[in-house]
């Protein structure tokens, strides 16, 4: 019997451009879980799609991609349909984008059954409901009638998995199926995938950029970089004793909770806290007329030079909190004081906003969206100097260049537009823009979660350095406990708009008092071998 998935010397390129994949070889056996690890642009998605014969338009291929002996690079359309229907299924990264938003969940699940399995609508319906039950969803009959926008991301991903399993595939391809989800949701999905993979004896190819996740699910790992396999082997060997430089770098960059490395809080000296928040509340009215409490009764303070991590899942109110601190939102109740000055409970006037901006700056999650695509980065930073430091044109340009070099953007980039920069470089520019106002408090709203691990590590390092040199006070909003453990002395855990636990980071991480905090910590993926030890 031929191998389940066997990719040999597979290369892909567009005419006139460099190779996107070169000589990729990998294989997946029956019942085996294999991870394909790499950062964005490494070609991992292209490789996986190739297994289904999904090649980008106008691309040139060489080598072979065989699923049960069928070479998808040369197979006729009919054979490819047969392969996609009976042998291999794929779970995509973002279920909200991957399930047609104008059709019901039931329609999504039954369409393949009705279209070509020849089942009647009733049979297909029954099969789909059973499958939904099996992937751990409740009220499945109601779900069948619902539209994707009525479901949470985690539920939708389960629907997507159900859709893939309905065809009883031998090979399950997973393209970062948990990247768009919260940690706790991710843990549930990973558990489900492992269960189903083992119960059905499927072969699985799991793409991820997260080494921890790969180790928690797969026995073997391929590391892909710029379209080339740089290392492969057993997950544990690759993780513990990597051979390739790149893998070593990747392992080093992968964030881990290291309690002994948590930074210390500044000594309490009775000064006025830089940021003091008292019983802060924010409510939104939903289109349906109901009220949603985004943040309820939040009280905390942050001393000058301190660092506070705010963690929680999506919808926990952590971004609302960050936006209120920089006055993008106005609190409904409570008090917010910066440097002892209590802020007026109304939207700020332009002059007040300018004054506030000198004290507090924010860096957003997605540098692709937060920089103006038409302004070259040198000017973007210089503008801040002119506005906030009152510098002249020439002086501002000089200051901007100095600051950009300080955050690691070389002079050759000053005249580039954001489009020409990589994600990490853009985030550096965004940080430089924030720092140009010489703020006392820097708010980072998921500032590294859109970046690759190695880039994230560099940006975190930069933030760490800047804090030490400039005496910045940090408020880091994130979902990643490992990032917090590295950067923040204090921690605040939010759930559904309520602070469920706050205190010293080291203490909370080593002995969480709250059940939710414990769950957050436990949800972090653990390597298979560690689990076997435990």
């Amino acid at each position: 019997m031929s191998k389940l998935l066997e990719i040999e010397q597979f290369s892909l390129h567009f005419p006139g451009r460099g190779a996107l994949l070169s000589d990729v070889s990998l294989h997946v056996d029956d019942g085996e879980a294999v991870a394909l690890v790499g950062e964005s642009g490494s070609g991992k998605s292209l490789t996986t799609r190739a297994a289904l014969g999904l090649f980008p338009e106008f691309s040139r291929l060489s080598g072979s991609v065989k699923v049960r002996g069928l070479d998808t690079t040369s197979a006729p359309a009919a054979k490819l349909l047969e392969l996609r229907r009976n042998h291999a299924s794929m779970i995509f990264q973002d279920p909200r984008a991957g399930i047609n938003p104008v059709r019901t969940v039931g329609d999504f699940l039954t369409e393949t059954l009705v279209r070509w399995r020849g089942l009647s609508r009733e049979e297909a319906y029954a099969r789909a409901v059973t499958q939904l039950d099996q992937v751990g969803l409740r009220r499945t009959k109601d779900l069948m009638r619902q539209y994707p926008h009525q479901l949470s991301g985690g539920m939708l991903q389960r629907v997507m998995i159900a859709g893939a399993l309905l065809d009883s595939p031998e090979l399950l391809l997973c393209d970062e199926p948990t990247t768009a989800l919260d940690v706790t949701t991710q843990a549930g999905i990973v558990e489900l995938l492992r269960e189903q993979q083992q119960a059905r004896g499927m072969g699985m190819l799991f793409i991820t950029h997260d080494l921890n996740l790969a180790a928690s699910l797969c026995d073997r790992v391929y590391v892909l970089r710029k379209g080339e396999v740089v290392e492969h082997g057993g997950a544990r060997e690759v993780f513990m004793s990597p051979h390739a430089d790149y893998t070593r770098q990747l392992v080093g960059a992968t964030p881990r909770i290291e309690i002994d490395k948590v930074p210390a809080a500044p000594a309490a000296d009775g000064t006025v806290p830089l940021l003091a928040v008292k019983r802060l509340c924010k409510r939104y009215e939903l289109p349906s007329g109901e009220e949603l409490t985004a943040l309820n009764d939040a009280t905390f303070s942050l001393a000058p030079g301190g660092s506070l991590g705010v963690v929680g899942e999506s919808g926990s109110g952590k971004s609302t909190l960050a936006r209120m601190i920089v006055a993008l939102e106005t609190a409904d109740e409570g008090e917010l004081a910066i440097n002892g000055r209590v802020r007026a409970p109304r939207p700020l006037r332009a002059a007040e906003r300018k004054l506030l901006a000198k004290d507090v700056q924010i860096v957003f999650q997605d540098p692709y969206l937060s920089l103006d695509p038409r302004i070259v980065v040198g000017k973007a930073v210089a503008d801040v100097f002119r506005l906030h430091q009152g510098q002249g044109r020439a002086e501002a340009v000089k200051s901007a260049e100095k600051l950009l070099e300080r955050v690691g953007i070389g002079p050759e980039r000053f005249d580039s537009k954001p489009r020409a920069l990589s994600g990490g470089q853009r985030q550096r520019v965004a940080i430089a823009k924030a720092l140009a106002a010489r703020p006392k408090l820097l708010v980072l709203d998921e500032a590294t979660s859109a970046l690759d691990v190695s880039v994230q590590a560099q940006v975190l390092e930069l933030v760490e350095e800047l804090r030490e040199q400039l005496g910045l006070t940090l408020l880091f909003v994130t979902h990643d406990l490992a990032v917090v453990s590295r950067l923040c002395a204090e921690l605040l855990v939010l759930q559904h708009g309520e602070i469920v636990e706050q205190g010293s980071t080291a203490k909370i991480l080593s002995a969480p008092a709250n059940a939710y905090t414990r769950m957050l910590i436990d949800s972090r993926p653990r390597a298979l071998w560690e689990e076997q030890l435990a």
Partner: protein
Amino acid sequence: MAVTELAAPPARPTPGRKKSPATSLIVLALRKVGTLLITLFFASLVVFFSRFVLPGDPARFLLRGRSPKPEALVEITKQFGLDKPPIEQYLTWVGGILHGDWGRSLTYRQSVSDVLLNRLPVTLELAALAAVFITVLGLAAGILASLNKGGWDRFILITVTAAGAIPPFVAAIALTALFAVQLGWFPSFGSGDEGLGRLWHLTLPALALGLTFIAFMARVTRSSMNEQLTREHVEVATSRGLKRSSVVFRHVLRNALGPILTVSGVLIAGLLVSSAIVEQTFGLTGIGQLLVQSIDRLDFAVVQAIVMIVVTAFVLANTIVDLIQPLIDPRIAAGTESR
């Protein structure tokens, strides 16, 4: 794993889903109808009072060629109620419309409703036929262009752009010259009898009328479909082994309908307005031609009625489009956006 309690993840932290989709649909519909009525009210104000801004006294016009005896002028003014204050005139006018009485035409000396009823069918048939051409040809060209990247796409795009740049009256003349005069396939003049004869007579005018809109429709269809084709859910559908045709119909075209429908709503009103030119060229006795004549003759009752009908058609068409949208995309009814 310590997360067994997560087997079913908690619902989204938006407790605002208690209203059933059906109620929110009804609320949406009522709101749309309310907007429709308010829009019509303001439109009627503008339509009616714009007469007072325009130069020319309609009563004087009626007596053109005769010596305007003051008594006759007063007589006419009184007969048509022109001596009353504008507000009162407006109320009488609106009241009349609500009863189906659009006032009296100054030139035809009969009720406006009768004049319009004679003319309206031709225009409606013309617009309907044009709409069929637009839908069939425009959609077909758009879909074809979108699904055949490269040569076909470019050819269709260029053809359609060129055709769309031709003004209706030029198109009318060109079509007449080719198909009526040279080939003799279609008549060049008149609206013909009822039934098939009418259809035969209206084919060329409808094509001339629809040409610009076909181009417009093709472009919107093409770009809307192109946008959907790059969506991930289309790739997912392909990866599940659906045939290309199923993918296109169920996942691309269906999702692309929203923008196409929005454009259609605007097009319908455009058809009624543009019909004036085409009717004039082909000698069709529709309301477009009537509008041109009536403006010329200061027959304000007829002008007001026609403008009001066009405005109503426009607003109505757009309201209907707005009401269909939530059926096509359920996210609209829920008031949430795609994320």
